[in-house]
């Protein structure tokens, strides 16, 4: 199979709508297919990784648990838009997986350097 890589950019927070869940399903499937997948969390998406989520009362699956499986799916390149994290006062130690902050210039280059870029 070809060595195309995928950059998946998420922009929505969890729970309020289906974007994040449906985008993550694409990431997990593509990774299970053997495609190298990088994940970039922008705008409201950094909230997906918060350890402190407890969605039992709204009867949803916990995104903290789902996202903590990303390394098991060989999705280890997880990036967070630094600007978005700052405005939300989100720090790396609050997150379920190791991630890297990137600035706007990094993001532009990441988009250029991936073969397929999907944004949700």
């Amino acid at each position, binding site marked *: 199979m070809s060595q195309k890589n995928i950059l998946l950019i998420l922009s929505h927070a969890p729970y309020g709508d289906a974007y994040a869940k449906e985008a993550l*399903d694409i990431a*997990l*499937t593509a*990774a*299970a297919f*053997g495609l190298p997948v990088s994940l970039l969390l922008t705008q409201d998406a950094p909230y997906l990784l918060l350890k402190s989520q407890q969605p039992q009362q709204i009867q949803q*699956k*916990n995104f903290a*648990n*789902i996202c*903590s*499986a990303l390394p*098991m*799916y*060989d999705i280890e390149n997880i990036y967070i838009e630094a600007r978005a994290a700052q405005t939300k006062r989100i720090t790396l130690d609050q997150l379920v997986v190791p991630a890297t902050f990137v600035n706007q210039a990094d993001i532009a280059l990441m988009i250029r350097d991936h073969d397929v870029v999907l944004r949700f």
Partner: protein
Amino acid sequence: MRQVIINNTSIALDDEGYLLHLGDWSTPVAEYLAIEEKIQLTDAHWEIIEVIRNFYQQYELSPAMRPLVKAVTSTLGKEKGKSIYLMKLFPESPAKQAAKLAGLPKPTNCL
């Protein structure tokens, strides 16, 4: 859907043999499902079933093949963390069959 009686309890299965209610799982249920899959359960099977149940507990996902192999490697060691080893135990498809016997939903990635 069909109902089967296991140890005097009525259990609902979907038409592919997966549990409809994940809470119905028990070791006798796994033994029953194994017979349907024509699998003779051994200790080697049980430890994989435990790994995959723990995976679901932790991540709320039925693992695809790759993450299943990783999980087996980290709990049972490198010798068992190989797709060939898992294929011997669950010949049709380890991710699907082990999920079924463990009472998990069918892995969506397989759909």
